[in-house]
């Protein structure tokens, strides 16, 4: 086999395009680059929708004026600055974080039916947050976000440890089983804490459903550096993940260190999922949905999947959030809306594609 003589670039192409016909590669590359523009446009539209749509209709020109000229005396300006802008920023950050965290998890577990929600990472992060609030008297996001990162990290290490040790390692069903079990246990603990501490229950009722409405802009911005760090780590590890997608044996043969890659990716997942959960609560299905949509348009190439996920996930989250604001007289939390969008897509995917009967 001639693979030892391949240059790194060729190796990467082999890794990424193995499933595709080589004759179409130039087309595909051009298509991938061109695709980023409509995706970015869609993302922009979704963010605009998040700025413009609300239970109180404000004309776009008014929103723009209020956004550019803050005026404490003006009610509309206050509303734009204290509600619309923080929510839009949070949609962008949490969306990108969850989308990329999902893509990382799917890549590193080689299991398509995975996201931080299904594997219990969001539950771990929220249990840590609830514990910090109830037992350690925390109230500020700068305190409990550390708990959220730690919770996400511990949970993902646990799920990976259970799913990747022993002879059945890499069996997706086994890992999903471990994740679902762990997630159920952790949310059980969260409910126990919430039931015995009614003041936390009252405060976190909205947050525990997954919402963009609960944080002021300062809180969101405190999370931002960590999410950005997670995104950078994700971007740097895409090549390694492409190699890993061929399986551990092939990856080792190509000079990669699967365990080292997994450890780095775990840190990124903890930063992304923990950060998003600390700010917006456990929002499900975005991490599942975005990478799948991305894979449908760009094919099995981790770098492109990540890049598209960063654009697709905030789009979906922004549209879901805007929809939730106008759906009823009150407001539907975005976590509820994403479940309603994500679950049918998941079901449709399972019905359309052949799922291996493991």
């Amino acid at each position, binding site marked *: 086999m001639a693979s030892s003589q391949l240059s790194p670039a060729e190796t990467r192409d082999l890794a990424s395009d193995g499933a595709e016909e080589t004759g179409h590669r130039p087309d595909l590359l051009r298509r991938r680059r061109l695709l980023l523009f409509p995706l970015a446009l869609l993302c922009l539209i979704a963010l605009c929708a998040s700025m413009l749509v609300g239970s109180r209709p404000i004309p776009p020109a008014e929103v723009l004026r209020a956004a550019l000229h803050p005026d404490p005396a003006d009610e509309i300006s206050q509303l734009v600055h204290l509600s619309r802008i923080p929510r839009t920023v949070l949609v962008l950050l949490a969306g990108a974080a969850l989308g990329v965290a999902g893509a990382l998890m799917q890549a590193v577990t080689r299991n398509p039916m995975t996201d931080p929600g299904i594997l219990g990472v969001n539950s771990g992060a929220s249990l840590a947050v609830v514990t910090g609030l109830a037992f350690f008297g925390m109230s500020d996001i700068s305190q409990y976000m550390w708990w959220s990162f730690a919770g996400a990290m511990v949970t993902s290490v646990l799920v990976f440890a259970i799913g990747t*040790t022993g002879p059945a390692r890499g069996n997706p069903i086994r890992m999903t089983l471990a994740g679902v079990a762990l997630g159920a246990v952790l949310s059980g603990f969260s409910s126990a804490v919430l039931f015995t501490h009614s003041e936390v229950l009252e405060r976190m009722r909205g947050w525990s459903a997954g919402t963009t409405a609960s944080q002021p802009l300062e809180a969101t911005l405190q999370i931002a550096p960590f999410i950005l760090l997670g995104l950078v780590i994700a971007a740097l590890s895409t090549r390694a993940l492409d190699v890993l997608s061929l399986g551990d044996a092939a990856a080792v043969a190509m000079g990669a260190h699967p365990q080292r890659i997994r450890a780095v990716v775990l840190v990124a997942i903890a930063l992304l999922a923990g950060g998003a959960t600390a700010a917006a609560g456990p929002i499900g299905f975005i991490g599942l949905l975005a990478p799948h949509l991305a894979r449908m348009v760009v094919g099995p190439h981790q770098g492109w999947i990540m890049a598209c996920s960063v654009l697709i996930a905030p789009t979906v989250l922004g549209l879901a959030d805007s929809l939730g604001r106008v759906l009823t007289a009150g407001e539907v939390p975005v976590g509820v809306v994403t479940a309603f969008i994500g679950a049918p897509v998941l079901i449709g995917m399972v019905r359309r594609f052949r*799922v291996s009967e493991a």
Partner: protein
Amino acid sequence: MTTLDLGRPVLRLGRAGRPLLLLDARSAALCAGLWTATVLLAGWAALSGAAGITPADGLAALLGRGDEYTTMVVVEWRAPRIVMAVLLGACLAISGALFQNLTANPLGSPDVIGFQTGSYTGALVVMLLLGGGTAAVITGALTGGLLTAAIVFALASRRGAVRGVRLIIVGIGVSAMLASVNVWILLTATVEDAIMASLWGAGNLSGMSWPLVVPTATVSIVFLVAAALLARPMKVTQVGIPFATALGQNVRAVQIAAIVVGIGLIALSTATVGPVSFVALAAPQIARRLVRADGLALGPSAAIGALLLLLADVIAQRLDPDSPLPVGIVTVSIGGIYFLWLLIREGRTR
């Protein structure tokens, strides 16, 4: 004549040549041990507690010779709760075992694939949106569970075959949707209503009384007998559908009967005490590993389910006597942790 070697110790009832009943020795011993533990735990639960009743007084009350207060506490308050825990634990475990066998997957239990969440949605709609009494809530829960099951099976079936991973993923999806509907209904309710409904929604055994236990027990016994009758044909089906068909079994009829019985059991328990999760998922798996059998082990599953739910309720009541937890939270914790431990141990030893 030679005796048939079944590869593992077997208890035989009747003549050697034509046995009346063959019982797996390990499974029988396990069941006996588990039920003894359950009875002992039930006795302890009935005789201890915050009311300050001595075991001797409590025993007298159970035998019908106690004073009025003791009789009320032990016979009217504690006993129905214990009976209900044992009964529903067994129901949940059997339901889980039936569905896990049908789907040929440990994740295919009714609390994972959304039937329990659907029951809860039905109950919430009746409780908070329509405003009905206990009977209406129970009807709502049953309707919700059956509707969810119908939707999940319809969405997951492909050319009439419902088996394996597709059903589970469809179930998880439907379950997530219904769970978010539940969250939304709770968010729109007033805080008092929401706390009441979510206490029930976490699975709660408090407030049981004999008038509620008697009908539940009657209905559940019907379903449990049906499940016991289904055990043998289902074991045959598990070997393989062509094999079962060749033996002259109507596989489709057995499967439909198993679905109806399984949903009946889970909806009954959800309607009475709310969605107690993880017993249906964990009990059959724990039983399977303890018996070291690869198939349907209804007897041990039921015994483990009963013990698990009773133990969880005892812990939930005694952990913090001032604010007792809903039992469902404890079942999640005990069942979940034990299940994880099994997964880890399996990963290490084999």
